[in-house]
């Protein structure tokens, strides 16, 4: 009997949803399966595409296609003069999604906001640990140093929330636009807790975002429908489908065959084919990333800036970039941050190719041998560490420096590379999280990041003072000046060889409009339309 019932229910679902075939459907060929649908608990870009950017919204949002902050669930906010208290005013009448597994009885309020953050750090909160999901680590919350900076979240009234910090932290607002800061429903959480089905919170998401979750067939297809109650207005496409397609060649073939409308990350080798096709458009944007090579600045003779400059000058960077990125192209880096980011210092120049000058300095410094590190993984900012190492090795050989290439598997590579005593030059890179310069300068080169992600073990007092001051200043004009100075010091001290900011690509069928490339590497479908 039970089986018959299940069958009947499934049949009903199929016939109801079968009607969806006539609606306007956009298919996105995503690159990987999401770990789950709770953006607080995941870390991958593909996880966020499938959860935070579709189902959820945040207090503040990044402008579509940019890194500027704009109002989200909070219409407006005030920051106290000492930079310690943030007061957010919520948009009234925001509805959580109504689905077959949850029917909200109230609108979004301050309780939801407080709960969304409390669950990520408060060990007393039942949603913080084992009771919800095993082995929760809240990686982004801790990774962005939130436990250090957040003193408390408070509900002032239903539509007002107050955030108090332990010390001023200007990037905080940008942090709140990040995926882990997505606002979840407390009412839904309470319902699941009562029903003893807490794990459903990560598999059947409820948010206030543009699309609502319909179904996920593990490792295969995710289905969403436009949220009819979306507070910024219902989307133009009715159904959004993620067809999970890990192989890059298959993904591009699917777009070309019309089986999907948008696909990310084509192989550089396929770019010419895509450009030649009349039905699709190759979209690109300078990514919010940097590929670089850290010198260990504590081990002589690499402790001398002139030696590091000489090594930089010995590398034919233009040829290197051409060989690595081929048709995909990349922008040679002038600074650590990409030119699309505010505070980028246009006057700072990177070392130009000058092997003759380099040769003399290196001979005087007595640098004859150096370790040059490479790993096996393809990264957006460096598609081939090994080839880069070989080309740099050849360039350095021309100036009398013999480089020994050191290879490790990717996770081991970073583990070994971050050690203070690691010698030589270490290839690495970074993709920004939130568009704030602090996310590059402090994350990668603050003194406190030595042994974590400061692979140069570089701790320069002047640079450090500037970036710490910028972190505590809320005025963006003031911060811009500080970061511009920091970039001058960086260029003078040369703790690293700067390679390039790579392009990020997506392939879009021509009947799709409104899709924008995003510097943060996320794929958003709000505001996207499709002509039949």
């Amino acid at each position: 009997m039970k089986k018959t019932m299940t069958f009947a229910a499934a049949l009903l679902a199929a016939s109801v949803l079968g009607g969806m075939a006539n609606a306007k459907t956009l298919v996105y060929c995503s690159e990987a399966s999401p770990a789950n649908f709770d953006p607080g608990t995941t870390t991958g870009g593909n996880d966020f595409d499938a959860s935070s950017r579709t189902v959820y919204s945040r207090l503040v949002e990044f402008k579509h296609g940019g890194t500027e902050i704009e109002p989200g669930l909070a219409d407006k906010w005030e920051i106290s003069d000492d930079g310690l208290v943030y007061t957010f005013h919520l948009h009234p009448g925001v509805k959580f999604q109504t689905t077959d597994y949850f029917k909200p009885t109230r609108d979004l309020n301050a309780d939801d906001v407080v709960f969304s953050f409390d669950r990520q750090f408060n060990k007393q909160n039942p949603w913080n640990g084992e009771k919800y999901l095993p082995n929760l680590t809240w990686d982004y919350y801790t990774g962005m140093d939130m436990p250090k900076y957040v003193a408390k979240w408070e509900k002032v009234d239903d539509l007002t929330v107050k955030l108090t910090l332990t010390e001023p932290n200007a990037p905080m607002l940008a942090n709140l636009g990040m995926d882990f800061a997505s606002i979840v429903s407390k009412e839904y959480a309470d319902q699941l807790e009562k029903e003893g089905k807490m794990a459903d919170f990560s598999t059947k998401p409820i948010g206030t975002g543009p699309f609502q979750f319909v179904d996920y067939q593990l490792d295969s297809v995710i289905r969403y429908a436009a949220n009819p109650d979306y507070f910024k207005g219902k989307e133009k496409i009715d159904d959004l489908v993620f067809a999970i397609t890990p192989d890059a060649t298959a993904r591009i073939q699917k777009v070309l065959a019309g089986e999907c409308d948008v696909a990310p990350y084509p192989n550089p080798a396929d770019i010419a084919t895509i450009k030649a096709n009349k039905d699709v458009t190759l979209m690109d944007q300078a990514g919010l990333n940097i590929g670089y090579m850290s010198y260990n600045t504590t081990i002589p003779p690499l402790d001398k800036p002139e030696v590091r400059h000489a090594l930089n000058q010995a590398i034919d960077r233009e040829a290197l970039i051409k060989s690595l990125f081929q048709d995909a192209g990349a922008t040679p880096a002038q600074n650590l941050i990409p030119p699309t980011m505010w505070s980028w210092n246009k006057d700072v120049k990177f070392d130009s190719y000058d092997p003759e000058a380099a040769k003399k300095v290196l001979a005087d410094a007595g640098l004859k041998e150096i370790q040059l590190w490479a790993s096996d993984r393809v990264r957006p900012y460096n598609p081939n560490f090994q080839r880069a190492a070989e080309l740099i090795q050849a360039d350095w050989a021309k100036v009398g420096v013999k480089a020994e290439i050191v290879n490790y598997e990717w996770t081991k590579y970073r583990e070994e590379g971050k050690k203070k005593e690691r010698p030589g030059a270490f290839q690495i890179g970074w993709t920004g999280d939130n568009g704030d310069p602090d996310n590059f300068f402090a994350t990668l080169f603050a003194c406190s990041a030595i042994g974590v992600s400061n692979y140069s073990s570089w701790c320069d007092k002047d640079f450090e003072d500037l970036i710490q001051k910028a972190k505590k200043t809320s005025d963006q004009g003031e911060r811009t000046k500080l970061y511009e100075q920091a970039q001058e010091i960086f260029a003078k001290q040369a703790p690293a060889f700067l390679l390039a900011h790579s392009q990020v690509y997506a392939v879009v069928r021509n009947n799709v409009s409104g899709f924008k490339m995003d510097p943060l590497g996320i794929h958003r479908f709000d505001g996207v339309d499709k002509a039949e």
Partner: protein
Amino acid sequence: MLRYLLNKIALLIPTLVGITICAFAFVRLLPGDPILAMAGEHGVTPARYEELKEQFGYNLPVWEQYARYVGEVATGDFGVSISSKRPVLQEFKTLFPATLELSFFAMIFAMAIGIPAGIFAAVKRGSWFDQSLMGTALVGYSMPIFWWGLLLIIFFSGYLGWTPVSGRMGLQFFLKPITGFMTIDSILYGKWDALRSALSHLILPAIVLGTIPLAVIARQTRSAMLEVLGEDYVRTARAKGLSAARVIGAHALRNALIPVVTTIGLQVGTLLAGAILTETIFAWPGIGKWMVDSIFKRDYVVVQSGLLLIALIVMAVNLIVDVLYAVINPRIRAA
């Protein structure tokens, strides 16, 4: 017969223990650990690293971790995935039908072509057909699956547009899985266009996955046939004046098929291994793709339990083949 069966089952126990050790050791021999894999470029502070190690139990001595693992597996607890936080067994159950369905159709493809081709080659021994078939079989056997799959996609899906590129079914069909087998489910729902879509999605991956078994079956059928065709009773049948078709079909083939059946059973391991690459190329949501993803994520739990579950299936199939063989051929039982 019972003793034979018990003997076979007893032999499985040391194999199983060996597999748990291998699965456990292999994943730990891979460089890099799951905590660093999770952290990505962000890195973790040494203090946080120690904290996480303790939370996941990786601070314990390796033998203790192994003992825990075996203890859990013995009680049917295959653990919870580090990355998705879902029980491994639940994910396995959801994904396995996809692999099974693909393997089934791959096998049908391999047998439907491999057996007749093998017979024909044996009958026409030394002919140009025999020569080229055996040559092709060798090529098929040596074909890198990855390359072969992409080649077929680019030609049949991209250039000719005959078959879908990847996936299990057209996205316009939205069937809640009943059995997890898309072909069966679409019949249960009575949706014939969905069935057609599921079958068309099966064509390329089944060909790719079936290529190696096809080559093996064709060669095995040919040699078994040749052996039987040389037997006295075949000569007798011919001497009686039976038609060639009757000699081959009724007398030779039935006897030649015994080793072929064994070969087919033993191809299950090949199919599951091949599924890893085939599923990744064709975005086929089965256990092969699941294992690859988990290895990259250093999801120890999924890799070690997944390996064990797959090994259990291969062992079970081998056991069934052994038993069937004994049923067909009573001489084996006595041996």
